[in-house]
């Protein structure tokens, strides 16, 4: 009997009914095999049989999950399998172990095989296991595997086969079989043993794997009756999880009964399925679509919505949330809801539970005598395991931290001298259990130190899982494993990966789950929230270097595998998952997405694309822009290539936004959708700005145009549709930020025997070299070769990519894969590039590739403001050429600067024509009638004798300006970062308050606060440290009145109770005791405590991610903190913090570099210290840096020093031009004839402008 029915219907009841009928009519229970998809459903099925059976004997039930079937079969019939194993030492039972043990075996097998040229060593094991899983679940034989190797043009085929063969032999020798290996033993075994089953009941027939189906085929001849429930739209486990469509009608040669009713739920789910397959947007009454800018907004909105529902009488268990990203941040936010929340997903590690983590540390301590311990961890043990009194625990671990600063002290040695009975007993206890097997040690520790109550149940269950794994190891390897390294492997066990270990779902909780878990558990709720719908993690990555889940399906019969196959198969599977998710909700589906993820990186869009909002934007809200005459041609754009040359202050951003909005309205190009518009900006902040402004105009717009920097676009191209596989890249590749890159290059530089100070140089050199694409063999410098190979090795071993790789690889991908290129060419109906003068050759190449089909390319910028060419890969010539060859709109009117300032700017262009003719294009700036300031004192060019005179003059002017114009803004623009700090200090001495515009992590209030509290926790005893931390904390408004605490710490031990009168004391003490959590959780705690404003809390999630990343490589709290301190004051390139829009700019003074000032404007601008050294405007003023020759030598066409000097002069002119055009009302250019160096005054040559001024 076959019947069609869906999940969350009564299908299981019908099957149970059939089961009971069979028994009633005389069948023995041990003749009936019941197969279900997973352990939870097995339990459910058994319960239903139990409930519905009459009293008396129920019999011997054979209800198994697909994996459990194999396990049980081996348990019953092991002796038959043992007979065919040639290795000696036959055990009575096989070791049916968890994945951890078999991974340990596999790891050792790989060591014996060289995977030549394979790029990711981290992931090799994972990839091999995935491949093995596919082979087993699809029961592929050697021949079938070889065919697939050919289809995929695999170059590692034979190595992979050898590794798997070795693994199979080794597991056979040890008789150690995880759930996958069990399936392959089962396949052999069932052919040797008489089949005991006469009836088969199969629930979830649509999720069956080929391996299980092969078994059913094999026993079919003995089976009297099959009872199969199947959903023709089901099979959500297609792909890696290896479900397969079986035509059961054909298999049994009978017609299926359709039990599906046309309920609104089923109709709506089916519509979702069909619309996705047909690529028709889903517009449905039961679906609410919302899109947010930041992820935290999305999460908070969800929580708010849930709380509202509960207030209106919805029960917690009628609500579920599904997301592929169930990270700590999300967990933390959801745990703030007052209801119980149960997390049914995610890759939680064993040691993530603080108690389990502490127990594991105790286990490590047991087995090592001479070891150091992170004081942070020691505290965890003291508080979490030994339950030592708080004040005493702090004292003990702080002293340990303090002593560790001087010289490292073994932890046990330290503890021996502590006069505390519990600690002494603990040490004795450790000594007593030292010689026991690991499993017994764990048993003793848990029995003695684990609290026995229900609150601790989650820790207890995890400890049991740990115990099970240790027992596995002891049974398999006896004593042949290193205890410590085993503990280290096990503490990182990801709990959810083992399909056999499933926690029970509590009855009254809100469920937060992954899609597959919710479906597998057949949870049905009234309100289902799907979060992160724009994140590509929704669409699972089913292809890796060593496995291809589609081609490795039993049913694969094509001769080729193309990118399009992947896209359509993935789409099919996604349709099935969403179909099933729709069957999990009775009332509302909420589809939520955000433009940015937790790290502030953009989401590329995923399942949100399938839906259409039923609220249309009210067009009245649209920003109305009335263009000036010189701007109008931009908005009149019809098609083709167009250049927009826009002078400073000409309103370029506004016009570009207007153009994008006009495009979105469909008024320029017909049938254009937002996904067809590609906008490239130079800075992330600009991309964000565009997005936020579009969002303001279209609040309900779910999919925004592709607006990003070139790196954002490149990342999308690499990641979307698993494209990276076509480059031979592994899916675990990680893009490293500039900080990480610098760390690696610094290590390589020092490793090659060079001075650390050379790091800067090699950062640049490696980038240049990569972009040139020269062969490393052709490079002459041995030290470069050495450093590069060290860097390259580190990158490859960890599967890292840097930003250069990102661009180079994405362009390579497009050039070598016509299908992929076609995909983007079809999409990109129009491309708009901002700051085109800074565009690099790769960027221009990408634009030309992607714009190849439609040819609608708009490039905006100002060649006269190209100020990054001499130190980055930007190439202003490309844009100049583009202007020359195409329709060029000149936006040359600007209402920003006073007319005198405009004159100076235009004069600068004219003057440069004589000295450096290539510096500018002759595009002059014109005022807008009636708009620009006309003051006669706009220009102040002053040369001083001494630097002090210059500084005093500036300070005096600033004070005067502030007095006369308290609301106006002032900008101080300097040549380099180091000048900024000195100048700030000077102004401070004059009581002038400035805003530094150096973008360091420490400038972010969240990072600063977290760092201060971390430093505090690490060392309370150190007064200097304490003082620094407290000073930072005192900046927080709530502690404003507690400045006295600084005096208190001078005279008193911080921890003494005398501090109790300060709230700050209590709060810090709170965190000191909170810190049994991991550093990451501490970040969230601190963030939650101090940063209530949502924008700030969004930054908390970024600091969290930064700390998480550091902790992964630096392992301990102390080392993580060391690194956090290290990067705190460097230019921040790792996080893209959200900042309040500068609304309260009035009256501020900002100091920044000339480079950084681009895009800004100020009422009054000072450009001090304009010496010829700082800004040479003549060839003879330019001194090339020592390393420029070396950098040139890495290029295919090295430039000679004359050309280099000329280019610098050109760029200096443009830098000056940028500086001048920042000023609205007044501009001050100053310099002094001498400068101070080590308290000696030396003469210096002022920049050309002053000489001309003097001549006048």
């Amino acid at each position, binding site marked *: 009997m076959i019947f069609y029915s869906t999940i969350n219907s009564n299908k299981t009841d019908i099957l149970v009914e059939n089961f009971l009928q069979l028994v009633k009519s005389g069948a023995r229970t041990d003749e009936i095999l019941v197969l279900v998809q997973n352990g939870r459903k097995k339990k459910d099925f058994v319960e239903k049989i139990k409930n519905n059976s009459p009293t008396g004997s129920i019999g*011997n*039930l054979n209800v198994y999950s697909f994996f459990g079937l194999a396990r049980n079969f081996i348990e019953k019939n092991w*002796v038959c399998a043992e007979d065919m194993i040639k290795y000696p*030492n*036959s055990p*009575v*039972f096989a070791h049916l172990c968890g994945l951890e043990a078999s991974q340990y075996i596999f790891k050792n097998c790989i060591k014996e095989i060289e995977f030549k040229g394979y790029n990711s060593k981290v992931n090799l094991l994972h990839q091999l296991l995935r491949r093995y899983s596919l082979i087993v679940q699809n029961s592929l034989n050697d021949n079938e595997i070889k065919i697939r190797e050919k289809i995929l043009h695999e170059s590692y085929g034979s190595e992979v086969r050898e590794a798997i063969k070795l693994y199979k032999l080794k597991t056979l020798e040890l008789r150690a079989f995880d759930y996958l290996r069990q399936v392959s033993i089962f396949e052999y075994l069932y052919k040797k043993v008489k089949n005991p089953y006469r009836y088969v009941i199969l629930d979830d027939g649509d999720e069956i794997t080929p391996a299980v189906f092969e078994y059913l085929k094999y026993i079919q001849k003995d089976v009297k009756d099959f009872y199969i429930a199947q959903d023709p739209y089901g099979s959500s486990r297609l792909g890696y999880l290896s479900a397969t469509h079986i035509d059961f009608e054909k298999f049994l040669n009978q017609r299926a009964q359709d039990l599906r009713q046309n309920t609104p739920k089923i109709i709506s789910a089916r519509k979702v399925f069909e619309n996705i397959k047909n690529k028709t947007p889903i517009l449905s009454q039961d679906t609410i679509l919302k899109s947010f800018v930041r992820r935290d907004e999305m999460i908070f909105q969800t929580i708010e919505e849930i709380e509202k529902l509960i207030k209106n009488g919805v029960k917690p268990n009628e609500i579920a949330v599904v997301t592929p990203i169930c990270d700590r941040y999300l967990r933390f936010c959801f745990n703030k809801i007052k209801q119980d929340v149960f997390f049914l997903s995610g890759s939680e590690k064993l040691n993530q539970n603080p108690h389990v983590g502490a127990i594991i540390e105790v286990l490590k301590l047991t087995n090592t005598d001479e070891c150091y311990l992170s004081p942070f961890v020691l505290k965890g043990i003291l508080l979490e395991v030994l339950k030592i009194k708080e004040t005493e625990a702090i004292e003990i671990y702080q002293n340990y931290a303090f002593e560790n600063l001087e010289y490292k002290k073994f932890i046990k040695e330290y503890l021996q001298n502590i006069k505390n009975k519990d600690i002494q007993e603990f040490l004795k206890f450790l000594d007593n259990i030292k010689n026991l097997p690991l499993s*017994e040690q764990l048993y003793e520790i848990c029995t003695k130190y*684990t609290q026995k109550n229900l609150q601790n149940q989650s820790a207890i269950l995890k400890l049991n899982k740990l115990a099970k794994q240790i027992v596995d190891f*002891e049974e398999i390897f006896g004593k042949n494993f290193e205890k410590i390294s085993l503990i280290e492997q096990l503490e990182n066990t990801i709990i959810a990966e083992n399909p056999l270990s499933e926690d029970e779902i509590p009855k009254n909780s809100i469920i937060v789950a992954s899609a597959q878990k919710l479906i597998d558990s057949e949870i049905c709720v009234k309100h289902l929230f799907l979060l992160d719908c724009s994140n590509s993690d929704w669409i699972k990555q089913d292809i890796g270097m060593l496995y291809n889940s589609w081609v490795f399906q039993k049913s694969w019969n094509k001769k080729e595998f193309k990118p399009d196959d992947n896209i359509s198969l993935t789409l099919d599977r996604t349709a099935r998952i969403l179909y099933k998710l729709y069957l999990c909700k009775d009332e509302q589906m909420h589809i939520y997405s955000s433009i940015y993820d937790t790290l502030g990186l953009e989401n590329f869009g995923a399942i949100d694309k399938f839906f259409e909002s039923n609220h249309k934007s009210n067009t009245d809200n649209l920003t109305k822009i009335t263009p000036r005459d010189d701007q109008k041609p931009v908005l009149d754009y019809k098609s083709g290539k167009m250049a927009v040359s826009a002078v400073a202050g000409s309103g370029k951003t506004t016009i570009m936004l207007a153009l994008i909005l006009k495009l979105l309205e469909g008024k320029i190009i017909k049938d254009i959708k937002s996904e067809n518009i590609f906008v490239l900006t130079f800075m992330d902040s600009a991309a964000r700005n565009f997005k936020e402004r579009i969002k303001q105009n279209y609040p309900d717009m779910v999919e925004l145009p592709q607006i990003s920097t070139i790196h954002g676009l490149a990342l999308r191209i690499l990641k979307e549709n698993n494209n990276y596989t076509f480059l031979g890249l592994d899916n675990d590749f990680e893009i490293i930020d500039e900080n990480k890159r610098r760390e690696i290059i610094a290590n390589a530089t020092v490793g090659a025997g060079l001075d650390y100070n050379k790091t800067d140089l090699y950062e640049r050199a490696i980038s240049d070299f990569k972009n040139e694409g020269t062969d490393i063999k052709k490079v002459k410098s041995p030290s470069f070769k050495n450093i590069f190979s060290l860097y390259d090795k580190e990158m490859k071993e960890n599967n890292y990519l840097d930003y250069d790789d990102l661009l180079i690889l994405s362009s390579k991908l497009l050039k070598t894969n016509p299908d992929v290129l076609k995909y983007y060419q079809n999409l990109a109906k129009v491309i708009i590039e901002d700051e085109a003068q800074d565009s690099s050759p790769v960027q221009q190449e990408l634009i030309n590739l992607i714009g190849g089909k439609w040819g609608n390319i708009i490039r905006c910028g100002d060649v006269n403001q190209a100020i990054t060419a001499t130190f980055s890969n930007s190439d202003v010539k490309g844009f100049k050429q583009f202007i020359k060859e195409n329709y060029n709109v000149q936006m040359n009117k600007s209402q920003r600067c006073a007319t005198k300032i405009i004159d100076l700017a235009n004069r600068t262009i004219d003057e440069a024509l004589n000295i450096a003719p290539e510096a500018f294009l002759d595009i002059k700036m014109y005022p807008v009638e009636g708009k620009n300031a006309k003051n006669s004192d706009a220009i102040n060019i002053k040369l001083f004798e001494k630097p002090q005179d210059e500084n005093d003059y500036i300070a005096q002017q600033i004070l005067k300006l502030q007095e006369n114009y308290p609301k106006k803004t002032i900008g101080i623009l300097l040549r380099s970062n180091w000048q900024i700090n000195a100048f700030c200090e000077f102004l401070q001495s004059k009581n002038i308050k400035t805003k530094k515009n150096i973008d360091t992590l420490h400038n972010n209030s969240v990072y600063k606060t977290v760092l201060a509290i971390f430093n505090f926790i690490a060392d309370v005893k150190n007064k200097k440290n304490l003082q620094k931390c407290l000073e930072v904390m005192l900046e927080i408004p709530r502690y404003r009145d507690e400045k006295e605490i600084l005096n208190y710490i001078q005279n008193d031990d911080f921890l003494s109770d005398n501090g109790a009168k300060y709230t700050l004391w209590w709060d810090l003490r709170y965190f000191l005791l909170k810190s049994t959590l991991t550093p990451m959780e501490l970040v969230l705690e601190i963030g939650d405590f101090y940063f209530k404003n949502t924008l700030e809390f969004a930054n908390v999630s970024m600091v969290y991610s930064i700390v998480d990343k550091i902790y992964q490589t630096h392992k301990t709290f102390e080392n993580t903190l060391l690194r956090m301190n290290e990067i705190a004051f460097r230019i921040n390139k790792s996080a893209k913090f959200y900042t309040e829009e500068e609304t309260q700019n009035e009256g501020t003074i900002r100091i920044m570099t000339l480079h950084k000032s681009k895009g800004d404007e100020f009422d009054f601008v000072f450009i001090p210290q304009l010496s010829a050294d700082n800004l040479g405007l003549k060839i003879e003023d330019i001194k090339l840096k020592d390393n420029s020759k070396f950098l040139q030598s890495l290029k295919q066409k090295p430039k000679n020093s004359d050309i280099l000097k000329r280019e610098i002069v050109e760029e200096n002119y443009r830098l000056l031009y940028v500086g001048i055009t920042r000023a609205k009302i007044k501009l001050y250019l100053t310099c002094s004839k001498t400068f101070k160096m080590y308290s000696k005054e030396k003469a210096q040559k002022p920049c050309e402008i002053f000489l001309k001024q003097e001549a006048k």
Partner: protein
Amino acid sequence: MNTFSVNSLKLLDKSTEEFINKYILHLDFLSSNQSAKRGERLHGLISYYLKGFDIEKIKSSLVQDEKELLEKTLCLDIFKQKEKFIKSEESFLIKCKNANTIFYLTGRFDAIFQDNDKYIIYDWKSKNIPQNPQDDLQSVVYLYCASKIFNTKNVTIRYISLESQGMTQAEFKDENLYLERIIGIIEKLPKKYLA
């Protein structure tokens, strides 16, 4: 919690707290017990043997004293096919009802033999065999369950010591007494845990 085995009932009888720790809080941490492992091995091999599998290969890998014990055990009369072998390692599940409570008994018979109309349940003991088998809780549960499974009161349980090959046995007596005793133990468990 509504399903009980002999072991869980024994623990509940001994101490409610220990029962809750083990079966509800799962505070077991898998303490490994070497002699239990040895018992499991011998059980396993006897079962393979009874099912008619060739156990020579595995037997030869056993340590000497286990091998000797196994050989001695297999010399016992029961393995000489006087009684009819029915099944080994057979799981069972019995639904019981008392007033308002429904509960289940579960377990596994080491071996079942049949002698004419009599069903004989064998239980291999790696350590001691019960000296008062009639009163032993295991006899109570097993005889009660076996009588339900085979629908007869003609049931016996025999305990065989794997160490000494000694034997004690108990015959089925009174169903109501058995049930009363079982329920008496189950009632020790606070109601909130009884689902």
